[in-house]
């Protein structure tokens, strides 16, 4: 008998179903409740996991093959970059501040996403969903590792990279990103999916990755460009997963809508605050700039985000609650951040600096309504202080927002001359916030946010306010990692080495 003639030909979709979904079964010896204990408490109703549409149909054989090809290329390039002192092709070592922030605050987030997706890759009861989440889990550890490997060579030559693992858990500004990921991981599986899979990967990732990787390309950082490009095809899968997941929740039961909307509101605002640091990178930290934060927001926020929420309107989803406040902050936030970073630069494991006259001319052109009026005068003042030998340093500790953990440096949405400050009292304790968005998030889940570890109070409670002891504790080397770029070791080294590479002296 000729077996081949009688075999059923499977289409791609059916073949994928057989190779994944059909692997699962209805348990008979243990209850589904016992096997999947966390899938109900958030209130999301799922009637039929089989209605899940696989966003990409990747079997393990293909996964290994494609990914190995990408890995070969990636490591070939970063090896060459290291061997050839590729760091000397940077426009300027100021650029590295952006990378230092990335390694200390964002790469640990990739790792957290890896753990979180492994957890939900086990906790969701549908095989299709599980496999998609597991693939993201293994991709995310890839991203954490490729980033560490790409930046490892910078660490050999420049300050500020060496203690990223200590900074992740202890320094004040990384708490912004880590509290974001801790928040997502301490949520249930569905909220985690909205937080990371949808808000971060789908709505906000373009605002992080596209400017970041373009900035790397513009500034001669081949190592970062390479991990960015190499991660891009993974990100495309992750974005598809995030979108599929939100549609699945909304299609399964109308009762899911208000829960999902609440999460979208929350995680948009959380994400917007984390990405605030990107605004500073784009407007201030790139020696050769790609576009302004305002321009990036127009493309990736207003246009792409707008299209997305128009698409989701058929499910009853409206744009996130904080959208208008975000829009009002766009022309201010990078300046407010950079002024904050400069005055607290004694406590950052990266450098900041006073923008040059050329930089300020660019900022005026990009922010015609705000820069000259509100921020140029402050920089001018700071510049004068520096020239007089009394540089502006704020050794006072910032008041941190209980929710997003950023210093409360932002202004009222309608009034750039007035610092925005909110507070609320819960169980007799007073809590401070940077915005209505953050206050709302707290008030919705106060028992969660009162647990937040706030690095500034910890400095007092654990180290008695001793700044030198604090620097030891966070592995910050005073006079090397921190402070003004102007006069730093990084500046001196870069100029000296580049001189060696480009002249005959």
């Amino acid at each position, binding site marked *: 008998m000729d*077996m*081949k003639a009688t075999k*059923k030909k*499977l289409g791609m979709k059916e073949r994928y179903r*057989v190779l*994944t979904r*059909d*692997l*699962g*079964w209805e348990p*008979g*010896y243990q209850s589904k409740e*016992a*096997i999947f204990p*966390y899938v109900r408490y958030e209130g999301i109703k799922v009637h039929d996991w089989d209605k899940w549409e696989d966003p990409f149909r990747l079997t*393990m*054989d293909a996964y*290994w093959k494609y*990914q*190995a090809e990408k890995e070969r290329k*990636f490591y070939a390039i970063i090896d060459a970059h290291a061997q050839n*002192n590729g760091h000397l092709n940077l426009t300027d070592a100021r650029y590295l501040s952006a990378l230092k922030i990335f390694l200390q605050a964002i790469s*640990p987030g990739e*790792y957290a996403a*890896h*753990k979180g997706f*492994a*957890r939900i890759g*086990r906790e969701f009861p549908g095989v299709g969903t*599980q*496999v998609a989440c*597991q693939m993201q*889990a293994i991709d995310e*550890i890839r991203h954490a*590792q490729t980033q*560490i*490997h790409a930046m*490892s060579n910078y660490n*050999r*030559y*420049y300050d500020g*990279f*060496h203690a*990223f*693992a200590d900074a992740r*858990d202890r320094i004040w500004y990384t*708490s912004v990103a*880590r509290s974001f990921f*801790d*928040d997502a*991981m*301490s*949520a*249930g599986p569905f909220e985690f999916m909205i937080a990371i899979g949808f808000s971060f990967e789908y709505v906000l990732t373009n605002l992080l990755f596209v400017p970041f990787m373009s900035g790397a390309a513009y500034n001669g950082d081949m190592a970062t460009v390479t991990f960015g490009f190499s991660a891009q095809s993974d990100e495309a899968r992750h974005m598809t997963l995030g979108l599929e997941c939100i549609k699945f929740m909304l299609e399964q039961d109308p009762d899911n809508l208000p829960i999902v909307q609440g999460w979208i509101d929350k995680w948009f605002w959380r994400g917007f605050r984390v990405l605030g640091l990107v605004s500073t990178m784009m407007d201030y930290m790139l020696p050769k700039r790609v576009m302004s934060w305002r321009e990036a927001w127009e493309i990736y926020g207003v246009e792409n985000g707008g299209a997305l929420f128009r698409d989701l309107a058929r499910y009853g989803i409206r744009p996130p609650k904080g959208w208008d406040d975000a829009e009002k902050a766009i022309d201010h936030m990078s300046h407010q951040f950079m002024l904050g970073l400069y005055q607290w630069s004694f406590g950052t494991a990266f450098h900041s600096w006073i923008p040059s006259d050329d930089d300020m001319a660019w900022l005026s052109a990009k922010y015609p309504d705000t820069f000259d009026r509100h921020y140029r005068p402050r920089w001018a003042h700071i510049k004068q202080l520096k020239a007089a030998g009394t540089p502006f340093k704020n050794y006072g500790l910032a008041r941190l927002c209980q929710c997003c953990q950023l210093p409360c440096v932002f202004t009222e949405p309608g009034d750039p001359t007035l610092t925005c400050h909110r507070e609320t009292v819960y169980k007799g304790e007073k809590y401070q916030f940077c915005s209505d968005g953050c206050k709302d998030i707290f008030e919705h889940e106060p028992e969660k946010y009162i*647990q*937040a*570890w706030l690095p500034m109070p910890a400095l007092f409670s654990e180290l008695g306010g001793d700044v030198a002891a604090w620097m030891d504790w966070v592995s910050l080397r005073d006079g090397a990692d921190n402070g003004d770029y102007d006069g730093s070791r990084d500046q001196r080294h870069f100029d000296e*080495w580049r001189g*060696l590479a*480009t002249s005959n002296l």
Partner: protein
Amino acid sequence: MQIDLRTVSIQPQRNAFDHLVRRFGDKPASRYQEGSYDIQAAENLHYRPTWDPDQQLYDAGITRIVMRDWYALKDPRQFYYSTYTLTRARQQDTTEANFAFVESRGLADRLAPELREAVLRLLVPLRHAAWGANQNNTFVCGYGFGTAFTQPCMYHAMDNLGIAQYLSRLGMMLGDVDALDAGKAAWLDGPAWQPLRRYVEDCMVVRDPFELFVAQNAALDGLLYPLVYARIVDGELSARGASAVAMLTQFMAEWFDETRKWVDAVLKAAAAESDHNREVLQGWMAHWNDRAAAALVPVVELVLGADADEAVAAQIAAFKARIHKTEISF
């Protein structure tokens, strides 16, 4: 003359990241070290999980195994994502070539019908067991503590999925989609498979990550893989004329030889840590090994019939000898 100044007199300022210098001394670190050590957040975690407020977000206390340093459980293969993926991609090339070889020469069609039936009866339901292993390793990765221990579990979980998919393809090559349906029916209702299915489902409610590691990767797979792939497929069935099938399961046999070294290294390091750990491990090993052996006897009987007891007994002895080398006796 072009002077290559770029290689001249640029002095590195340091050899490695601080946390690696503290662990391994002031010297350049390997990529495995960079990608594995201390990359999980360790302190000042912000919130307790809403899904279980008794736990911390990363909690070493949810297992009975106690380690001063969870990074002592290192992977002797030194797999990080890149080395893992490159290794599997190479194996996948071989597997693909093997499938193509069997297909192009019609070797599957030449199997005697009763032999083909035996292969399908044994191997196809195992794709569900492999899916169970995927679930369990994903769990250990998700809830275990310390990247050195958990990272290989993610790779292992994806391997389990790959194996489930190879078994599915094997089923379709030797039979048809109907063969997969029949295999699933046997897994769900066939008496021979119920003890094993119960074992797998019982594992899915174990929420001590280390116990689950022992139950799945040591106790169950430590018997299942040598019995099914070495004893039965490479031995019995090849002798009866089904060496084509051994080509299709070459990955599983090689994979088991590779991964057991990692499993043993983890067990050995955990047992060496303390008498407490060793006692816990001995208890788990005794419990799950007994259950695994009992669950596998009817599966092995499907092909070996009356010889099943002897085959399982021999494998238990071999497994005990293997595990004794990790200083765990049971």
